[in-house]
C-alpha cells in the first residue's frame, strides 16, 4: 500500500454531491444557418461543395475538412437517399431502458458525399436493410424553427 493511512470503517466512506451546472445556447454557425433556413423555408437540403475534391458536405461546412478550401458554393441535394447503417437504441439519455426503442439511421442523401444522422420512422427495425431507400418527413412548415428537429424522421419508400 502506498498510503500510510486508510479508511477502515465502511461508514467513513461518503461521497459529496454536486454537479457541473451547464446550460448552453449554441448558434448554428454560418453554414448551419443556411442549412436550417433552407429546410425551414423550402424543405430543401443544402450541401456545400468543394471544387477541389468535389466533396458535397451535408450538413454543409464553410470549409472542406480534407483540403481546407473555403466552401461558398451551396448546392441542393435530394431529400431521399440510401440507408448506410441503422440501429435500434434501447437506453435513454438518463441511462434507463426506454419503453419505446428509438430507431436511428445513417442516410446518404442523393447528391451528398456524407451521411446525415437522423431518426427512422413508420417502420420497424426488422424491415430495415442496408442500402434501403428512405425519404425525409418534415414538420409542417408553420411548426419548423430552424433546427435539425424540423425533420421528423426518414421513412422507407417503396420502389
Amino acid at each position, binding site marked *: 500500500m502506498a498510503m500510510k493511512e486508510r479508511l477502515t470503517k465502511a461508514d467513513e466512506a461518503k461521497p459529496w454531491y454536486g454537479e457541473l451546472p451547464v446550460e448552453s445556447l449554441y448558434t448554428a454557425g454560418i453554414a448551419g444557418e443556411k442549412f436550417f433556413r433552407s429546410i425551414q423555408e423550402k424543405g430543401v437540403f443544402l450541401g456545400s461543395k468543394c471544387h477541389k475534391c468535389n466533396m458535397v458536405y451535408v450538413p454543409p*461546412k464553410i470549409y472542406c475538412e480534407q483540403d481546407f478550401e473555403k466552401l461558398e458554393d451551396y448546392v441542393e441535394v435530394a431529400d431521399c437517399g440510401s440507408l448506410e447503417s441503422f440501429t435500434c437504441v434501447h437506453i435513454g439519455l*438518463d441511462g434507463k431502458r426506454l419503453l419505446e426503442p428509438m430507431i*436511428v439511421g*445513417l442516410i446518404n442523401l442523393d447528391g451528398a458525399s456524407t451521411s*446525415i444522422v437522423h431518426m427512422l420512422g413508420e417502420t420497424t427495425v426488422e424491415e430495415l436493410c442496408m442500402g434501403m431507400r428512405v425519404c425525409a418527413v418534415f414538420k409542417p412548415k408553420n411548426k419548423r424553427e430552424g433546427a435539425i428537429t424540423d425533420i421528423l424522421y426518414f421513412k422507407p419508400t417503396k420502389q
Partner: protein
Amino acid sequence: MSDRVGIIGIGATQFRSITPDVSYKELMFEAAVKAYDDAGINPRKDVDTFVTCAEDYIEGTSIFDEYVPDQIGAALKPVHTIGGDGLHGIATAFLQLKTGRFDIAVVEAHCKPSNMLTPDGIEACGQDPIYNRPLKLNTHFIAGLEMNRFCYETGVTYDQCAKVVIKNRRNALNNPIAGRAAKLKLNDFKYAESVSCPLTELDIAQPADGAVVIVLANESKVRALKKEPIWVSGIGWCNGTATLESRDWVYLNYVTKAAEMAYKMAGIADPQKDISFAEIDDRYSYKELQHLMALKLCCSCNPGQCVDNGRTEINGEFPVNPSGGALGMGYMYEATGLARLYCAVEQLRGNAGKNQIKNAKTALVQGWRGLPTTSTAVTILNA
C-alpha cells in the same frame, strides 16, 4: 536526435468498479508513489516535466489541471494537461524528452467514473450540439451504427464479437489489478440485453476507477540511473473527423495513419511478424477487431477469423489484450490507454504472472478516445 526514450517506472492502483475509500487525489498519490519507487527517483528533485491527461466533464471540475500537481509531486514545476488519452500523454512526454531540454518526464492519468452519477448525460455533452444532440440519443447509438455497418461490410459475426469479450474477460482472471474479470460462455450473450442493436450490454466495457503513473527518461539518464528500461521505439497519433456525417464507419484510416507513423519510427516493416503482442482499445467488443484491422495486425481480410482460430489468445500466434483489455479490466476514460501500456510493460518485463507470454520482445499499445471521437494514439515498446 539519436537519444532514445525509455520507461523506467510504472505505478498503478487496483482497478475497481467503485473506490469510496479514497478521493481522486489520494488515488493519484498511490499510483505516483508506486511509480517513483519503481523508478527509484524523487519527483521533487529528479523530474523535469509532468503531463496529465484529463477531461473536465469526467472530473466534474472545470480547468481540472488546477488540482493535479500536489499529489504527484509536481507543485511549482512544469506541469500541464493534455485533453487526450493517456497515450497522447506518453506522446507528449516523448516529444518533450526528444527536444533534449528534459531528462525525466512523468505521465499521469486517472479516472473515477464511479463518481459520475449521470455518465450517459455527461457523455451526451460530447455530441455535436447542432446536428446530433437535439435527437436526444444515448451516445451508445454511435457504436450501434458503427458495429452494424462494420459487421455488414467485413462479414464479422456477432458471435465473433462475443468471443472477443469472452477472451478478454477470461484473460483478466489472471490479472491481479483487473476489475472486470469474468468467465463467460457464448450462451450468456443470448440473454444479454440490447443497448443499441446489435450492441448488447456485454459488448460494452464497463467503467472502473483507477490511476496510472508512468516515468520516462532519455537514454543518457536511463544509463545514469542504471535502469533496465522498456524503450519507446515508436509513437504515432492521429485524428479523423469530428463529425459523424463525414466519417468512414468501417475503415479507420486515422488508426492506420497513427500506426504507420509509429511503425516507421520503430523500423517495423511487417507488424504481424515484428510485434509480439498487442494491447489495444476494446471499449466495445467489435472495436478490438476494427482496430486490429486498421493496425494491419489481422491475418486475413476478415478480422473475426482471428478470434475464431484462437490467434489472439494468450497462447496464440499473436496475443491481443492479454491483460484483459478494457473489457476485462474496466474502462477508465482518459486512463484506459495508460492501463494498456502499464500491462504491456509488465509483459515485456516478464512480470505478467500466469498471463506471461513467452518471448515477448515488442509490444504495440493503442488507445482510442471513445465516442464520439476519432482520435487515437499508438506506441511501440521494446524490451
